[in-house]
Protein backbone atom coordinates (compact mmCIF):
# COMPACT_ATOMS: atom_id res chain seq x y z
CA UNK A 1 0.00 0.00 0.00
CA UNK A 2 1.53 3.24 -1.07
CA UNK A 3 0.66 5.40 1.92
CA UNK A 4 -0.74 2.93 4.35
CA UNK A 5 1.17 1.33 7.16
CA UNK A 6 1.27 -2.38 7.79
CA UNK A 7 -1.32 -2.26 10.61
CA UNK A 8 -3.83 -0.59 8.32
CA UNK A 9 -3.04 -3.13 5.66
CA UNK A 10 -3.58 -6.00 8.09
CA UNK A 11 -6.94 -4.52 9.09
CA UNK A 12 -7.95 -4.12 5.44
CA UNK A 13 -6.93 -7.71 4.63
CA UNK A 14 -8.79 -9.02 7.68
CA UNK A 15 -11.85 -7.05 6.54
CA UNK A 16 -11.57 -8.48 3.05
CA UNK A 17 -11.38 -11.99 4.47
CA UNK A 18 -14.66 -11.24 6.28
CA UNK A 19 -16.01 -10.17 2.89
CA UNK A 20 -16.45 -6.59 4.01
CA UNK A 21 -17.28 -4.35 1.07
CA UNK A 22 -15.63 -1.26 2.59
CA UNK A 23 -12.33 -3.12 3.05
CA UNK A 24 -12.37 -4.23 -0.57
CA UNK A 25 -13.02 -0.66 -1.59
CA UNK A 26 -9.91 0.43 0.36
CA UNK A 27 -7.89 -2.35 -1.25
CA UNK A 28 -9.01 -1.24 -4.72
CA UNK A 29 -8.04 2.37 -3.90
CA UNK A 30 -4.66 1.35 -2.52
CA UNK A 31 -3.52 -1.05 -5.22
CA UNK A 32 -5.34 -0.20 -8.43
CA UNK A 33 -2.78 2.26 -9.70
CA UNK A 34 0.17 -0.11 -9.41
CA UNK A 35 -1.72 -3.14 -10.66
CA UNK A 36 -3.07 -1.18 -13.58
CA UNK A 37 0.46 0.02 -14.38
CA UNK A 38 1.71 -3.57 -14.22
CA UNK A 39 -1.01 -4.81 -16.58
CA UNK A 40 -0.61 -1.84 -18.89
CA UNK A 41 3.15 -2.28 -19.21
CA UNK A 42 2.66 -5.96 -20.04
CA UNK A 43 -0.28 -5.64 -22.41
CA UNK A 44 0.33 -2.16 -23.79
CA UNK A 45 -3.42 -1.78 -23.96
CA UNK A 46 -5.82 0.18 -21.77
CA UNK A 47 -8.88 -1.96 -22.39
CA UNK A 48 -6.99 -5.15 -21.55
CA UNK A 49 -5.62 -3.49 -18.41
CA UNK A 50 -9.13 -2.44 -17.37
CA UNK A 51 -10.38 -6.00 -17.86
CA UNK A 52 -7.48 -7.56 -16.01
CA UNK A 53 -7.82 -5.15 -13.11
CA UNK A 54 -11.52 -6.00 -12.70
CA UNK A 55 -10.82 -9.70 -13.06
CA UNK A 56 -8.12 -9.56 -10.42
CA UNK A 57 -10.24 -7.85 -7.77
CA UNK A 58 -13.23 -10.08 -8.46
CA UNK A 59 -10.99 -13.13 -8.05
CA UNK A 60 -9.57 -11.69 -4.84
CA UNK A 61 -13.00 -12.02 -3.19
CA UNK A 62 -12.33 -15.77 -3.08
CA UNK A 63 -8.55 -15.86 -3.20
CA UNK A 64 -7.81 -13.50 -0.32
CA UNK A 65 -8.79 -16.23 2.11
CA UNK A 66 -5.75 -18.14 0.91
CA UNK A 67 -3.41 -15.36 1.97
CA UNK A 68 -1.92 -16.48 5.28
CA UNK A 69 0.42 -13.63 6.09
CA UNK A 70 3.80 -12.63 4.73
CA UNK A 71 4.47 -10.17 1.96
CA UNK A 72 1.06 -9.09 0.69
CA UNK A 73 2.57 -7.12 -2.20
CA UNK A 74 4.39 -10.19 -3.40
CA UNK A 75 1.34 -12.40 -3.01
CA UNK A 76 -0.96 -9.93 -4.78
CA UNK A 77 1.39 -9.44 -7.72
CA UNK A 78 1.87 -13.19 -8.03
CA UNK A 79 -1.91 -13.49 -8.40
CA UNK A 80 -1.79 -10.63 -10.92
CA UNK A 81 1.00 -12.38 -12.80
CA UNK A 82 -1.00 -15.63 -12.94
CA UNK A 83 -4.01 -13.75 -14.29
CA UNK A 84 -1.78 -12.21 -16.95
CA UNK A 85 -0.48 -15.66 -17.91
CA UNK A 86 -4.04 -17.01 -18.13
CA UNK A 87 -4.87 -14.14 -20.45
CA UNK A 88 -1.81 -14.82 -22.57
CA UNK A 89 -2.74 -18.48 -22.90
CA UNK A 90 -6.25 -17.52 -23.92
CA UNK A 91 -4.82 -15.13 -26.48
CA UNK A 92 -2.51 -17.74 -27.89
CA UNK A 93 -5.52 -19.91 -28.55
CA UNK A 94 -6.72 -17.30 -30.93
CA UNK A 95 -3.65 -16.41 -32.94
CA UNK A 96 -5.53 -15.01 -35.86
CA UNK A 97 -7.38 -12.49 -33.71
CA UNK A 98 -4.08 -11.51 -32.10
CA UNK A 99 -2.46 -10.96 -35.46
CA UNK A 100 -5.25 -8.76 -36.69
CA UNK A 101 -5.15 -6.74 -33.44
CA UNK A 102 -1.41 -6.33 -33.79
CA UNK A 103 -1.65 -5.05 -37.31
CA UNK A 104 -4.45 -2.73 -36.23
CA UNK A 105 -2.26 -1.31 -33.46
CA UNK A 106 0.68 -0.97 -35.85
CA UNK A 107 -1.53 0.91 -38.28
CA UNK A 108 -2.76 3.25 -35.54
CA UNK A 109 0.79 3.91 -34.37
CA UNK A 110 1.90 4.64 -37.90
CA UNK A 111 -0.97 7.07 -38.42
CA UNK A 112 -0.11 8.89 -35.21
CA UNK A 113 3.54 9.12 -36.16
CA UNK A 114 2.56 10.55 -39.50
CA UNK A 115 0.35 13.15 -37.91
CA UNK A 116 3.28 14.38 -35.79
CA UNK A 117 1.66 13.50 -32.49
CA UNK A 118 4.18 10.85 -31.53
CA UNK A 119 5.58 12.45 -28.40
CA UNK A 120 2.17 13.27 -26.96
CA UNK A 121 0.13 10.30 -28.05
CA UNK A 122 2.41 7.31 -28.08
CA UNK A 123 3.92 5.93 -24.91
CA UNK A 124 7.59 5.72 -25.83
CA UNK A 125 8.44 3.35 -23.02
CA UNK A 126 5.58 1.07 -24.00
CA UNK A 127 6.85 0.97 -27.56
CA UNK A 128 10.41 0.17 -26.55
CA UNK A 129 9.21 -2.50 -24.14
CA UNK A 130 7.86 -4.32 -27.16
CA UNK A 131 11.50 -4.98 -28.08
CA UNK A 132 12.19 -6.78 -24.83
CA UNK A 133 11.31 -10.46 -24.61
CA UNK A 134 8.07 -11.22 -22.81
CA UNK A 135 9.56 -13.00 -19.82
CA UNK A 136 12.14 -10.33 -19.08
CA UNK A 137 9.52 -7.62 -19.55
CA UNK A 138 7.34 -9.30 -16.98
CA UNK A 139 10.21 -9.70 -14.54
CA UNK A 140 11.20 -6.04 -14.68
CA UNK A 141 7.58 -4.93 -14.29
CA UNK A 142 7.01 -7.37 -11.46
CA UNK A 143 10.04 -5.99 -9.67
CA UNK A 144 9.12 -2.38 -10.32
CA UNK A 145 5.41 -2.48 -9.48
CA UNK A 146 5.32 -5.13 -6.77
CA UNK A 147 8.41 -3.81 -4.97
CA UNK A 148 9.51 -7.39 -4.52
CA UNK A 149 13.21 -8.08 -4.18
CA UNK A 150 15.06 -10.41 -6.52
CA UNK A 151 14.90 -13.23 -3.99
CA UNK A 152 11.11 -12.95 -3.66
CA UNK A 153 10.65 -12.75 -7.42
CA UNK A 154 12.78 -15.85 -7.86
CA UNK A 155 10.69 -17.70 -5.25
CA UNK A 156 7.42 -16.52 -6.73
CA UNK A 157 8.41 -17.58 -10.26
CA UNK A 158 10.23 -20.75 -9.24
CA UNK A 159 13.43 -19.56 -10.94
CA UNK A 160 17.01 -19.45 -9.67
CA UNK A 161 17.87 -16.02 -8.29
CA UNK A 162 20.91 -15.74 -10.58
CA UNK A 163 18.67 -16.21 -13.64
CA UNK A 164 16.23 -13.54 -12.46
CA UNK A 165 19.06 -11.15 -11.70
CA UNK A 166 20.71 -11.65 -15.06
CA UNK A 167 17.45 -11.39 -17.04
CA UNK A 168 16.37 -8.19 -15.25
CA UNK A 169 19.83 -6.70 -15.62
CA UNK A 170 20.05 -7.46 -19.34
CA UNK A 171 16.50 -6.27 -20.00
CA UNK A 172 16.94 -2.97 -18.13
CA UNK A 173 20.27 -2.31 -19.83
CA UNK A 174 18.64 -2.99 -23.21
CA UNK A 175 15.68 -0.80 -22.35
CA UNK A 176 17.98 2.06 -21.40
CA UNK A 177 19.88 1.66 -24.65
CA UNK A 178 16.66 1.64 -26.68
CA UNK A 179 15.30 4.68 -24.89
CA UNK A 180 18.54 6.60 -25.44
CA UNK A 181 18.59 5.65 -29.11
CA UNK A 182 15.00 6.69 -29.64
CA UNK A 183 15.54 10.05 -27.93
CA UNK A 184 18.55 10.71 -30.22
CA UNK A 185 16.48 10.09 -33.35
Amino acid sequence: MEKTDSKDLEAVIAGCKRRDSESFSKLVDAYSRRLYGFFYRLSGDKTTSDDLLSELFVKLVEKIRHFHGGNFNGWLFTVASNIWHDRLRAKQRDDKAMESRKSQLELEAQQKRLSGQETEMIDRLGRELENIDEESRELIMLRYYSQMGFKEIAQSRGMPIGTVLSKVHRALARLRQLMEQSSDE
Partner: protein
Amino acid sequence: MNNKDENLKELLNKFYAEAEAAKAEEDILRGEQIIADNPAPRPDAQQMRFVKLQVNAELKRTAKTEKLSRWRWALTAAAGIVIAAGLVFVHNYQFRDERPASIAEIPKANVEDSDFSFDDTELELLAADIEAVEDEILALQLGENGTEWISADDIEIELLEINEDFWKG
Protein backbone atom coordinates in the same frame (compact mmCIF):
# COMPACT_ATOMS: atom_id res chain seq x y z
CA MET B 1 9.54 1.73 -6.59
CA ASN B 2 12.21 -0.88 -6.08
CA ASN B 3 12.49 -2.86 -2.89
CA LYS B 4 14.27 -0.69 -0.34
CA ASP B 5 15.06 -3.58 1.98
CA GLU B 6 17.18 -5.31 -0.61
CA ASN B 7 20.92 -4.87 -0.60
CA LEU B 8 21.39 -4.88 -4.34
CA LYS B 9 25.15 -4.36 -4.28
CA GLU B 10 25.71 -7.28 -1.93
CA LEU B 11 23.47 -9.50 -4.02
CA LEU B 12 25.19 -8.58 -7.28
CA ASN B 13 28.61 -9.20 -5.77
CA LYS B 14 27.59 -12.82 -5.27
CA PHE B 15 27.03 -13.29 -8.99
CA TYR B 16 29.38 -10.82 -10.71
CA ALA B 17 32.97 -9.71 -10.37
CA GLU B 18 33.35 -6.39 -8.56
CA ALA B 19 33.56 -4.17 -11.65
CA GLU B 20 30.72 -6.02 -13.39
CA ALA B 21 28.59 -5.83 -10.25
CA ALA B 22 28.97 -2.06 -10.11
CA LYS B 23 28.00 -1.78 -13.78
CA ALA B 24 25.02 -4.11 -13.29
CA GLU B 25 23.83 -2.07 -10.32
CA GLU B 26 24.01 1.10 -12.38
CA ASP B 27 22.14 -0.54 -15.27
CA ILE B 28 19.40 -1.77 -12.98
CA LEU B 29 18.96 1.51 -11.11
CA ARG B 30 19.04 3.64 -14.24
CA GLY B 31 16.70 1.27 -16.06
CA GLU B 32 14.22 1.45 -13.22
CA GLN B 33 14.54 5.21 -13.18
CA ILE B 34 13.49 5.25 -16.84
CA ILE B 35 10.36 3.29 -15.90
CA ALA B 36 9.69 5.76 -13.07
CA ASP B 37 10.15 8.71 -15.43
CA ASN B 38 7.65 7.25 -17.89
CA PRO B 39 4.68 6.41 -15.71
CA ALA B 40 1.96 4.16 -17.04
CA PRO B 41 -1.50 5.68 -17.29
CA ARG B 42 -3.70 5.40 -14.23
CA PRO B 43 -7.07 3.70 -14.20
CA ASP B 44 -9.69 6.41 -14.56
CA ALA B 45 -12.26 7.15 -11.84
CA GLN B 46 -15.02 5.49 -13.83
CA GLN B 47 -13.01 2.29 -14.10
CA MET B 48 -12.33 2.32 -10.35
CA ARG B 49 -16.06 2.68 -9.67
CA PHE B 50 -16.75 -0.15 -12.08
CA VAL B 51 -14.21 -2.41 -10.35
CA LYS B 52 -15.80 -1.66 -6.96
CA LEU B 53 -19.27 -2.39 -8.34
CA GLN B 54 -18.06 -5.69 -9.73
CA VAL B 55 -16.43 -6.61 -6.43
CA ASN B 56 -19.65 -5.78 -4.57
CA ALA B 57 -21.67 -7.87 -7.00
CA GLU B 58 -19.23 -10.75 -6.47
CA LEU B 59 -19.46 -10.33 -2.68
CA LYS B 60 -23.25 -10.53 -2.87
CA ARG B 61 -23.14 -13.50 -5.22
CA THR B 62 -20.70 -15.34 -2.97
CA ALA B 63 -22.73 -14.57 0.16
CA LYS B 64 -25.88 -15.82 -1.57
CA THR B 65 -24.16 -19.00 -2.76
CA GLU B 66 -22.80 -19.69 0.72
CA LYS B 67 -26.20 -19.06 2.30
CA LEU B 68 -27.84 -21.40 -0.19
CA SER B 69 -25.18 -23.99 0.42
CA ARG B 70 -25.72 -23.77 4.22
CA TRP B 71 -29.48 -24.11 3.74
CA ARG B 72 -29.01 -27.05 1.42
CA TRP B 73 -26.77 -28.76 3.95
CA ALA B 74 -29.20 -28.09 6.81
CA LEU B 75 -32.15 -29.35 4.74
CA THR B 76 -30.26 -32.50 3.76
CA ALA B 77 -29.37 -33.16 7.39
CA ALA B 78 -32.96 -32.49 8.50
CA ALA B 79 -34.30 -34.78 5.77
CA GLY B 80 -31.90 -37.50 6.87
CA ILE B 81 -33.06 -37.20 10.47
CA VAL B 82 -36.73 -37.26 9.45
CA ILE B 83 -36.21 -40.34 7.24
CA ALA B 84 -34.28 -42.14 9.97
CA ALA B 85 -36.93 -41.28 12.56
CA GLY B 86 -39.63 -42.41 10.13
CA LEU B 87 -37.92 -45.75 9.52
CA VAL B 88 -37.56 -46.35 13.26
CA PHE B 89 -41.20 -45.47 13.79
CA VAL B 90 -42.40 -47.72 10.95
CA HIS B 91 -40.24 -50.57 12.17
CA ASN B 92 -41.56 -50.23 15.71
CA TYR B 93 -45.11 -50.00 14.45
CA GLN B 94 -44.86 -53.11 12.24
CA PHE B 95 -43.37 -55.34 14.89
CA ARG B 96 -45.13 -53.94 17.93
CA ASP B 97 -47.49 -57.00 18.25
CA GLU B 98 -44.91 -59.64 17.34
CA ARG B 99 -42.23 -58.51 19.72
CA PRO B 100 -42.40 -59.69 23.33
CA ALA B 101 -42.15 -56.98 25.91
CA SER B 102 -39.57 -58.98 27.85
CA ILE B 103 -37.49 -62.13 27.51
CA ALA B 104 -39.70 -63.83 30.07
CA GLU B 105 -42.58 -63.57 27.65
CA ILE B 106 -40.83 -65.64 24.96
CA PRO B 107 -42.47 -69.09 24.91
CA LYS B 108 -39.94 -71.65 26.08
CA ALA B 109 -40.91 -74.02 23.27
CA ASN B 110 -39.85 -71.43 20.72
CA VAL B 111 -36.33 -71.38 22.08
CA GLU B 112 -36.00 -75.12 22.52
CA ASP B 113 -37.40 -75.95 19.10
CA SER B 114 -35.34 -73.42 17.28
CA ASP B 115 -33.00 -74.83 14.75
CA PHE B 116 -30.03 -72.49 14.56
CA SER B 117 -28.41 -73.87 11.47
CA PHE B 118 -25.32 -72.17 10.19
CA ASP B 119 -25.23 -70.79 6.74
CA ASP B 120 -21.67 -69.81 7.10
CA THR B 121 -19.18 -72.59 6.34
CA GLU B 122 -16.62 -71.08 8.67
CA LEU B 123 -19.07 -71.15 11.53
CA GLU B 124 -19.94 -74.76 10.77
CA LEU B 125 -16.30 -75.78 10.85
CA LEU B 126 -15.80 -73.94 14.11
CA ALA B 127 -18.84 -75.64 15.60
CA ALA B 128 -17.49 -79.03 14.49
CA ASP B 129 -14.09 -78.28 16.06
CA ILE B 130 -15.70 -77.18 19.29
CA GLU B 131 -17.74 -80.37 19.38
CA ALA B 132 -14.61 -82.43 18.83
CA VAL B 133 -12.84 -80.66 21.68
CA GLU B 134 -15.90 -81.10 23.87
CA ASP B 135 -15.84 -84.83 23.14
CA GLU B 136 -12.19 -84.99 24.01
CA ILE B 137 -12.76 -83.18 27.28
CA LEU B 138 -15.60 -85.53 28.06
CA ALA B 139 -13.48 -88.55 27.21
CA LEU B 140 -10.72 -87.18 29.36
CA GLN B 141 -13.09 -86.67 32.27
CA LEU B 142 -14.49 -90.19 31.91
CA GLY B 143 -11.00 -91.75 31.50
CA GLU B 144 -11.96 -93.23 28.14
CA ASN B 145 -8.84 -92.10 26.39
CA GLY B 146 -6.80 -95.20 27.18
CA THR B 147 -3.12 -94.72 26.82
CA GLU B 148 -3.39 -91.49 24.82
CA TRP B 149 -3.21 -88.95 27.55
CA ILE B 150 -4.05 -85.39 26.51
CA SER B 151 -3.21 -82.71 28.98
CA ALA B 152 -5.44 -79.69 29.73
CA ASP B 153 -2.66 -77.50 28.26
CA ASP B 154 -2.84 -79.39 24.95
CA ILE B 155 -6.56 -78.80 24.80
CA GLU B 156 -6.12 -75.14 25.56
CA ILE B 157 -3.49 -74.83 22.78
CA GLU B 158 -5.81 -76.60 20.40
CA LEU B 159 -8.65 -74.25 21.33
CA LEU B 160 -6.41 -71.24 20.75
CA GLU B 161 -5.37 -72.59 17.33
CA ILE B 162 -8.98 -73.14 16.36
CA ASN B 163 -9.82 -69.66 17.46
CA GLU B 164 -6.92 -68.18 15.48
CA ASP B 165 -7.76 -70.18 12.37
CA PHE B 166 -11.30 -69.00 12.53
CA TRP B 167 -10.41 -65.33 12.64
CA LYS B 168 -7.84 -65.74 9.88
CA GLY B 169 -10.69 -67.00 7.73
